[in-house]
């Protein structure tokens, strides 16, 4: 695939051309806070501040989404029968009908300026809502996802809280990415990976990249990949989380947790929701809203019993879900290493620390430093996305005497 080039001053024209046909969403700074927002001509796209506060998942998996409208109406009163007074009063009970209207709007949209970890988050949510393994297929999410094109931007300067390479990603990764923009001198080197990406980048201002631009892009990716820390070893985490389920460490780690949902709401992968009905007089709507596993009501049953009554139980769930339950069901991880949960937690609870402590074998001390892997995923960006089967999280079988091979 030939690499294209878009000069930086052509970016607004490029986005405008997209905006003529579809909604364009991009990271935009308002009052010093960078968030994904609908873009319009004249708005500056913020690419220097790495990571918008939230991932763009809210544009595909809406925070609140009405999917059903309903209304009750009275059927004409039934004609009086000839029965006794008792049955006459029964037949006087009005007969209600309910009208239901299903909603599922999925306008085409392009998300520009998301990061490879954000795009990977969509791929992980696709499993859940897209019917992977014969499980549930969600028409609301899937329709919107289908209508969405992801134009990602390579992270030139990863943050200290980033750990995408530790879990099989990369600052220039293209899992789920339709086209990848890498910032080079005065512009972007543009690679497309899908038909959607081709269609979105069919813009007259895009020329072929020169050899110098191509090699600069390769160098940017390589440099960036080398800047990502590898704060824990993935291998064995799943089994160790399993073995540590009753570990005292969960209590210690969750002491400073305030049971809010910040980590899950800024996360590109967390997908839990609850469903509500709101009824005003005779008409109402059914909608779903994001929910999170730190909410004490999340698992409360109608009997009043709560299987995860303690904060430490709820805390344990988030990490076990991402690195144990989800992998068991969907054969990949539910984390893409963006580090937003670390950045925005009111008490800076650190998922890396949690995995270091609870992801090591019972009775051992967590390793402090892990050797960085070779920065190779960036060098061959047209190759297949880095495969991360669930086996990666499973420890190699221990030798019979318990010593390491």
């Amino acid at each position, binding site marked *: 695939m030939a690499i294209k080039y878009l000069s930086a001053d052509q970016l607004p024209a490029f986005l405008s051309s997209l905006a003529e046909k579809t909604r364009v969403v991009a990271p935009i700074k308002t*009052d*010093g*806070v960078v*968030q994904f927002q609908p873009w319009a001509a004249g708005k500056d796209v913020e690419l*220097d*501040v*790495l990571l918008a*506060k*939230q991932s763009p998942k809210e544009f595909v998996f809406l*925070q*609140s989404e009405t999917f059903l409208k309903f209304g009750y109406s009275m059927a004409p009163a039934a004609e009086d029968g000839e029965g006794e007074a008792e049955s006459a009063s029964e037949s006087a009970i009005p007969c209600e009908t309910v009208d239901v209207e299903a909603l599922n709007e999925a306008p085409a949209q392009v998300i520009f300026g998301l990061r490879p970890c954000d795009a990977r988050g969509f791929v992980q949510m696709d499993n859940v809502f897209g019917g992977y393994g014969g499980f549930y297929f969600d028409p609301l999410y899937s329709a919107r996802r289908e209508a969405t094109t992801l134009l990602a931007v390579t992270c030139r*300067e990863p*943050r*200290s*809280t980033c750990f995408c390479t530790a879990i099989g990603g990369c600052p220039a990764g293209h899992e789920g990415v339709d086209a990848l923009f890498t910032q080079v001198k005065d512009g972007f080197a543009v690679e497309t990976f899908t038909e959607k990406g081709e269609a979105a980048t069919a813009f007259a201002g895009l020329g072929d990249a020169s050899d110098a631009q191509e090699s600069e892009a390769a160098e940017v990716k390589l440099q960036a990949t080398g800047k990502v820390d590898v704060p824990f070893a993935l291998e064995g985490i799943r089994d160790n989380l399993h073995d540590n389920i009753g570990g005292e460490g969960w*209590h*210690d780690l969750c*002491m*400073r947790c*305030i*049971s*809010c*949902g*910040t980590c*899950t*709401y*800024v996360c590109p992968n967390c997908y839990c929701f*609850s469903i*509500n009905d*709101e009824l005003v007089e005779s008409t109402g709507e059914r*909608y779903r*809203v*994001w929910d*999170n596993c730190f*909410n*004490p*009501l999340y698992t*409360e049953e109608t009997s009043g019993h709560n299987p995860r009554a*303690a*904060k*430490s139980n709820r805390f344990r769930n988030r990490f076990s879900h991402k690195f144990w339950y989800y992998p068991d069901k969907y054969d990949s991880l539910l984390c893409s290493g963006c580090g937003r949960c*670390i950045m*925005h937690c*009111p*008490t*800076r609870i*650190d998922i*890396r*620390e949690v995995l270091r402590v609870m992801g090591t074998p019972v009775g051992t001390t967590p390793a402090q430093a892990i050797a960085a892997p070779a920065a190779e995923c960036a060098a061959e960006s047209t190759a297949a996305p880095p495969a991360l089967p669930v086996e990666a999280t499973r420890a190699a079988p221990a030798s019979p005497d318990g010593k390491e091979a």
Partner: protein
Amino acid sequence: MSRQDHIREFAAAALRDGRVDYFIGWKQGHNSSEVVPAFVKDPAEVEQLVWNELCHHNLVTFLKRNMPDPAGAKIGVCVKGCDSRTLVALLQEELVDKDTLYVVGVPCDGIVDRRKLEKESADELVAISCSDGKVSVTTRQGSGKEFAKDSVLLDVCGRCRYPNAVYADDTAGPPVEEPDRKHAEPDWSDVADYENLSDDDKQALLEQIYSTCVRCFACINVCPVCFCWDKCVNRSRQPELVSQKVGPKENLLFQMVHMFHVAGRCPSCGACDRACPVEIPLYLLHRKMNKEIYDMFRFEPGTKLDEKPVFQVFDLTDQFGD
């Protein structure tokens, strides 16, 4: 002896003597630009405790209902002046048991607002240090900047009337000089702009600032005096009094409920403001409520142990507004 040394010494002694099961202070986070709450169980581990201009967390949060682990644990806790007022508010209503607490007051001369520093640079902050009224910042890519400390303090600090804890068992070093409270009125200048707006403009402003709220409940859960926890009316489904839907009007109602429920107990410590992941200026409504309460009742929440919160007492001489 520095305040930090005092804290460590008090913590070690309390843990050694069995006066507390664990001691809550502050420690460095994942780098020196971050401070996080620390829970120390072993006297040998008190060296991790720090005291500096980044210790913004109000640790009283970890005393409220459902937070002590195990329930009923004896807890040592560090409080700044503003934090101590939230503790007093809880004690006034007997929502925490004084006998299970060991309180170390930490005289404070201002906490740095990390978000003000973040906004000065596109790059990530990895180190922050303070000395001689200067705050030095280092970014991930190695560039450094220096700020006058007064210019980057939390807004709440600039108007502080209680720099020393109003209630403590021990104090970490000599108290800092108190402002003249008897003769000086509180400074409410920060809500003047809001008050001068028309009703419509107020409504528009509030809807706009709450429009980005994601209902993560960080503001509610971090609030030391907001203690309903899993019984919060904002989360109730039966009856559903506050819509779970996210939108400007719904979000405004959600925040209004919080403001009214903590009125008379909230001393505007600003914990909600700092916890909000999308940086909504939550502080504004709480400050406005505090001003109203002060104007009507001359009441400052959480300042005297033997007082009751203003909405728990009734006095025939009360004057209700104009």
